[in-house]
């Protein structure tokens, strides 16, 4: 367990330190930020680094085995309805718990001056991910070529973007970017490889790939539709 934490910490430090250093230099020499602001920033870098390492370790020993166990169970049952219901539930709940989603939605609500409801956003995003991961699973089961699925949903995004109010347009595209975060990605991959490995004649590699990218189209449509309905 200590090894897992060390690996996670190393990864997190690698990704956070370079930017933090540049930001610190900018604060010191260009902006001339007061000392308490700089201290707060440094403290937050430490909190983010430690927190994210704990988070990644937790995902590895908790979320991943859970995803694989449930993925294997899904495929063993061989019932499409069971597959659809459980896949939807678990990806919906994991998206609700995704840290990136928590940060983005609360920022959106703050910037909009509480005009856009945070819970409505979270639910639209999670519904989008849930439905699109289910579609991805069905694609694996019925062997539909991935290009057609992508092209069709991207066209849908483009068409819907003409009807989306401007306030919702940018945030809907951003919502697609954040769902591919550290909580949902391992879980969806574990589910997908679990299902693909039990299905005859499916390669875990080429069928497992693409799940994440496809999952991130769902929230774009979800938030766009939220905007269309609310205005």
């Amino acid at each position, binding site marked *: 367990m200590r090894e897992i934490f060390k690996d996670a910490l190393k990864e997190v430090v690698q990704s956070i330190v370079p930017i933090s250093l540049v930001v610190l230099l900018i604060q010191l020499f260009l902006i001339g930020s007061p000392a308490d602001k700089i201290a707060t920033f440094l403290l937050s870098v430490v909190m983010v680094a430690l927190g*994210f390492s704990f988070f990644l370790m937790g995902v590895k020993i908790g979320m991943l085995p859970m995803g694989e166990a449930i993925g294997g169970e899904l495929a063993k049952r061989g019932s499409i309805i069971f597959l659809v219901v459980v896949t939807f539930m678990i990806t919906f709940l994991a998206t609700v718990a995704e840290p990136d989603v928590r940060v983005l939605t609360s920022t959106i609500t703050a910037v909009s001056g509480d005009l856009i409801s945070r819970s409505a956003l979270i639910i639209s995003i999670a519904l989008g991910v849930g439905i699109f991961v289910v579609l991805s699973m069905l694609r694996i089961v019925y062997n539909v070529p991935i290009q057609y699925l992508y092209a069709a949903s991207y066209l849908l995004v483009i068409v819907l973007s003409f009807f989306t109010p401007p306030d919702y347009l940018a945030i809907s595209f951003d919502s697609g*970017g954040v769902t591919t975060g550290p909580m949902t990605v391992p879980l969806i991959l574990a589910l997908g490889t679990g299902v693909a490995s039990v299905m005859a004649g499916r390669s875990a590699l080429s069928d497992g790939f693409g799940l994440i990218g496809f999952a991130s189209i769902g929230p774009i449509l979800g938030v766009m539709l939220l905007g269309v309905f609310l205005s």
Partner: protein
Amino acid sequence: MIGTVLNSLRHAFIDVIQAIVPLILFFLLFQVFHLRYPSRQVMKILLGMAFTAVGMVLFLSGVFLGFLPTGQDMGRFFGSYEEKWVLISVGVLLGFLATFAEPAVRVLCYQVEKASTGYIKSSLMLYTLSLGVAVLVGIGMARIIYEIPLSHIIIPGYLLAILLLFVSDRDFIGISFDAGGVATGPMAVTFLMAVAIGAASVMEGGDPLVDGFGLIALIALAPIIFVLSLGVLFRLRKGDDG
């Protein structure tokens, strides 16, 4: 300062409880009705979830305490410069660093090297990918300054991606769409977004809700177009050989 730290920890704690309890309940129900795992394994999974929750509390309070305010400060500072290119260059620099330092991006580059049987070197790809994200963050900042609607950039981008889907090598397609996720790591989402919002808030006649968001979407689009284009190159080369 201690007061604000405690306050942000308290907020994050409430948020994390709301976020993670439903997932734990679902797992326990699934365990009781379907899985029936031995209790040792269940305890391990629950322990992992406890770590996840503690980590999330620290992460989120750090983000709200320092990352977002600092990013917004920086955005406001560079956004109010007379020389607008400064904001664009800062965006390019931060975009490059965020991608270059992200471990998930390195994993992706290695995958592509394998999928192309060594034809596309992972180090070359790392530099070009970081540069690609850097350019798109620069475009994102320029968009805020000149108030270009996001749809004028993102829709041509998506159309290009659709076009590339049908001419790119098959192995690269799945990788490319998963790649969209790797560049949007925690640094990009929290920090770059805050810089953009800060910059948009000081632009005259700008609306932070319309202009400040959209950067994450651009960052996610860069690797997709990039990896698909590599797939086209690879396919052309394969065609030459055969």
